[in-house]
């Protein structure tokens, strides 16, 4: 069969989501943010929620998330997204309100806002991108940076005696009575992308249904910060990140999932 017979609108099985703006993303090649943006745009489109969604963008690489997904957005101060989202949702209870935050934003400077929004059981979805590094400022140590991991501020590797331990914030959030759904996903393969998409969709459905806070952590890469190619970053992530941050549901329907091991 000739290519021009195949490439025909009737045969199209995958296309750029309509809610993803035409702007070329500012992210580095291979960045996980792009994939997560794409699946969020797909979900909002599939759920017919464009008119009913308010996104809260963080400070960090995803500060410009509002340039890409075609819904109303507010750009929060560093770490404060869950506070904004709490008020937005309470004042506009019919809206889907979600935050999009990186590890520095959510688990360092915004720890208090994150934990208290989740503990109040705010009816919001928190999308948390954990790539274990500060990407935007040039690859400094994040709260989630692994022990031994080299960053601009841990040039000889993270030492717990100097820098403390990597913070597993999703496990902490799962312990809170206000969270309904806490899950850890990845987006480095087609299969994991599909799972992550289901997880984010579920988080959005939970928020709209008023079930409390849902948190979807996406373990991602930062090839520029990690100083590896995108493919090598994915492999490094599988080898090192998943040990500290294993994929899977931590809590569902308000129940903590026991460790499978």
């Amino acid at each position: 069969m000739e290519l021009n017979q195949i490439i025909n609108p009737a045969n199209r099985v995958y296309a750029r989501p309509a809610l993803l703006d035409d702007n070329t993303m500012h992210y580095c090649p291979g960045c996980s943010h792009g994939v997560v943006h794409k699946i969020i745009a797909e979900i909002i489109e599939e759920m017919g929620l464009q008119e009913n969604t308010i996104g809260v963008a963080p400070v960090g690489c995803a500060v410009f998330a509002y340039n890409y997904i075609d819904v109303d957005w507010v750009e929060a101060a560093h770490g404060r997204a869950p506070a904004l989202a709490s008020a937005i949702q309470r004042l506009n209870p019919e809206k889907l309100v979600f935050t999009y935050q990186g590890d520095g934003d959510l688990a360092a400077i915004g720890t208090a806002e994150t934990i208290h929004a989740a503990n109040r059981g705010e009816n919001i979805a928190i999308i948390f991108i954990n790539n274990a590094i500060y990407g935007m400022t040039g690859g400094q140590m994040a709260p989630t940076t692994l022990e031994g991991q080299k960053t601009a501020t841990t040039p000889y590797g993270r030492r717990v005696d100097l820098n403390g331990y990597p913070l597993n914030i999703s496990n902490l959030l799962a312990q809170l009575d206000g969270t309904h759904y806490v899950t850890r996903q990845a987006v480095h393969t087609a299969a994991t992308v599909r799972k992550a998409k289901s997880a984010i969709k579920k988080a959005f459905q939970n928020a709209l249904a008023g079930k409390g806070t849902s948190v979807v952590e996406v373990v991602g890469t930062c090839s520029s910060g990690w100083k590896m190619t995108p493919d090598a970053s994915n492999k490094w992530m599988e080898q090192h990140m998943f040990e500290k941050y294993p994929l899977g549901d931590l809590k569902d329907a308000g129940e903590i999932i026991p460790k499978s091991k």
Partner: protein
Amino acid sequence: MNEDIRLMKGNEAIAHAAVRYGVDGYFGYPITPQSEVLETLEALMPWETTGMVVLQAESEISSINMVYGGAATGKAVMTSSSSPGVSLMQEGISYLAASELPALIVNVMRGGPGLGTIHPSQSDYFQATKGGGHGDYHLIVLAPSSVQEMADFVGLGFDLAFKYRTPAMILADGVVGQMMEKVVLPEQRQRRTAEEIRTQCPWALTGKTADRKRNVVTSLELDSAIMEKNNERFQRTYKEIEANEVRYQGYHLDDAEYLIVAFGSMARICLKAVEEARKAGVKIGLLRPITLWPFPYEAICKASENAKGILVAELNAGQMIEDVRLAVHDNVPVEHFGRMGGIVPNPAEVLGAFTDKFGVKFNDQTN
């Protein structure tokens, strides 16, 4: 007349006035001497009547960012705190100003610096009127000197904030917050409907519909040329506010040989001092700025034309005096009288300052 007259604290009046104005949301964190604002709102349960949201946040940082989020959706939202808490809010206030969002912030000032004291002070004048946070911005700053004004300035503050799309602040102090007085509460208004917000606030996050581009509320702009234009727009707004919104009250300005400039609770004390001085044969007038920003420079300049001296009385080490000096261009001697650390002076001390600074003699009425 069916005036709704009550006896209450200034802080309570803020809370009642907020519900009556149709405020959509209050977000706050307890701190003395203003905790009655949140306490009163929780007791009033306005979510059962007007639908107003009231939430005790985990910190002042969170409170102001809740205000930021709520304001972005076009809602009338407010917070209140006292000096150390307002320091924590400065980042969020800067974001509100930069994102051109209306909101109301109440600061019931206490003495500082640091944790300072829970007693009254006016030592956040610089912080309130000169920006407070980072960047070139101003807040509209209203200084109430009575419980009635605490109630009235909630509505005025929101009206101005929405008119100019900029945050407004009620800069009260522990005296006005804690004292009880008669107050006439405003009539109950309805909160704005979603449709009214859509039409009155086309910039608000109301959900992206097919008839408009998506709305984005952000203070970020990396293109320096655009960022400068944004700043120029902010400054034009400030010029407009300076031209239209200066408010002050004058007492015995017509024949004043000496002038007192004082705001808030200090102005009440000074009014008594003016009356005492006049009984003792000295014609003192009082000018009370109601808007601390925009500041009544011209009014003070005019009121001081025939004055031999101006006493700026404040519960601080001398802050508003800088603006008064700018107003009179060194044409009139300007002196300061202030108490700090939570001390509230009496009228006799104010008159004593006239004797100390200007050599004014008062007829002794005690004999």
